[in-house]
């Protein structure tokens, strides 16, 4: 890595000898420092993967004991773990679907139409992203509790005690803004002349949208959906406030880690990690090819 980073950079007009310390920093120190920082970022991931092959002596997978494939052979072998993973996946899939649809619609409206309040809305849409997660979770919980207490009780659908539905509501909420921002970024570079061409050739608005616009913005929508999925499947802070007795995978990990740290946590963490890396590698390879063809 250090080699890669020390590739020659365009030399400035001033001779480097003028600041030989600065020059040395630029040449050696920065790449070395960056390599160390990357190592720092990778170490906990390496620990997670390595310790997924551990056979811990007690209930806690904290100290290396001996190599074993037990965890990988029985990845769901703890009460509640399988259910938690299924809940996590269902919440992530459903919230991604809803948030992507709602967020894409807002993104389309914000980039393609002029209407009253558009400027303000462009700013307001950032608010949920700028609010600390703990405040989002806490405030949602107060609302859900309030639906079961007077004066709201009886008047509105009760959302307390909390559970699957409230987790889903929360995940859709915090994902919408991220989808809007991602889709907007994609739409910013959109060439409207392509749509005009389609309509000049006799396509009506709906046909133009489905045959021209949608395929062109689809990669942006996919990127937004992937982001939403990964935010949802990893969320702990907000979910912890609105999950009641329902467990998602992070909630399950948090509640069990006081009494035991099964090796299965590392196994499932590794599976999610490798799956995500594989997916990203695949999509970047494909988009790389698409760019080359174009």
């Amino acid at each position, binding site marked *: *890595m250090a080699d890669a980073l020390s590739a020659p*950079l365009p030399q400035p007009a001033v001779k480097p000898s003028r600041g030989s310390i600065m020059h040395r920093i630029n040449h050696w120190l920065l790449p070395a420092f960056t390599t160390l920082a*990357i190592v*720092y970022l990778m170490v906990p991931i390496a620990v997670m993967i390595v310790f997924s092959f551990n056979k811990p002596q007690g209930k806690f997978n904290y100290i290396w004991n001996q190599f074993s494939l037990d965890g990988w052979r029985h990845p769901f072998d703890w009460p509640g773990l399988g259910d938690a993973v299924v809940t996590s996946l269902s919440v992530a899939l459903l919230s991604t679907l809803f948030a992507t649809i709602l967020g894409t619609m807002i993104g389309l409206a914000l980039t393609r139409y002029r209407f009253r309040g558009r400027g303000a809305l462009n700013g307001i849409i950032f608010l949920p992203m700028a609010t600390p997660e703990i405040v989002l979770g806490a405030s949602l919980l107060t609302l859900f509790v309030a639906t079961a*207490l007077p004066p709201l009780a009886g008047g509105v659908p009760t959302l307390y005690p909390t559970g699957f539905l409230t987790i889903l509501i929360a995940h859709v909420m915090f994902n919408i803004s991220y989808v809007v921002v991602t889709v907007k970024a994609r739409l910013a570079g959109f060439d409207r002349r392509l749509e005009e061409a389609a309509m000049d050739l006799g396509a*009506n608005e709906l046909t133009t949208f489905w045959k021209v616009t949608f395929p062109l913005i689809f990669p942006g929508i996919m990127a937004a959906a992937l982001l939403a999925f*990964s935010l949802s499947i990893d969320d702990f802070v907000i979910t912890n406030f609105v999950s009641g007795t329902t467990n998602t995978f992070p909630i399950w990990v948090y509640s069990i880690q006081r009494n035991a740290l099964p090796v299965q946590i590392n196994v499932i963490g590794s599976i999610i*990690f490798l799956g995500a890396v594989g997916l990203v590698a695949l999509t*970047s390879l494909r988009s790389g090819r698409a760019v080359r063809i174009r």
Partner: protein
Amino acid sequence: MTAATPTARSAPRGPTLRARFGRAVPYLLLAPGLIWLVLFYVIPAVQMFTYSISTGTLETGFTMTFGLDAYATAIDRFGKQFLNSILYGGLATFFTLAIGFPVAYTIAFRGGRYKNLILFLVIAPFFTSFLIRTISWKILLGDEGPLLAPLKHVLHVLPGNFSILNTAVAQVAGLTYNFLPFMILPLYVALEKIDVRLIEAAEDLYADRRAAFRRVTLPLALPGVFAGSLLTFIPAMGDYINADLLGNPSTRMIGNVIQNRLLLQNDYPVGSALSFILMAGILVAVAVYARALGTEQLTG
């Protein structure tokens, strides 16, 4: 935005969407998502504020008294945790900036064809759960873990009872680790945009490298510093996992108290007041910080 006219001109067979719904189209597109955000972002915030000026319990229900008792309690009893949040959140932001800036600089100016690979490595931690990463730190920093055990028993440079886990040091290290990518990415985006010719021009005009960095590169990178600091400080302030897993009772942050009040004690007035203070404090901090950096385009 010139596209609105050709639509009307080339209206083909049958009424178009625009003809049928006219000016309503953007509002129809916005409505479902905005209704969701009003119901589950705006109204909860209002509800939380209402509870913070109410008294009562889950059993009896809450009545609005417009009293500020909950706020008094929040500040009286949990001042230390607020200070912890500011201190540890601030330290984590400082360290992520200190580590992140050189890294982002290197990627932007020296990355060459490995740019994307290094960026990928920077965001790779996001592919594992936040919680599992923090647990990994617990394994790493453990008294007999992969880091301390060799130093204690092989190299004998540390006493046998040396411990990092459950200290403020471990907690800040965990926070720094968890939010480092949030700092690097916006810094990279800002640095990447800098036109190298500006730096060259400064050097042509007899600025040495240090001066060119200080007078050209740094000011141009400020929007990245601003965005990265916010993306780190806001979640770090509210975090309670690192305090919970890596710290000890005296290093608890405000997030731990909010979670405890709302989920374990069912003390909704005080829990709501604490959250509200946190949110207001962060908004004020953001405003002050934006003014201090002095650029109005920062937020745009």
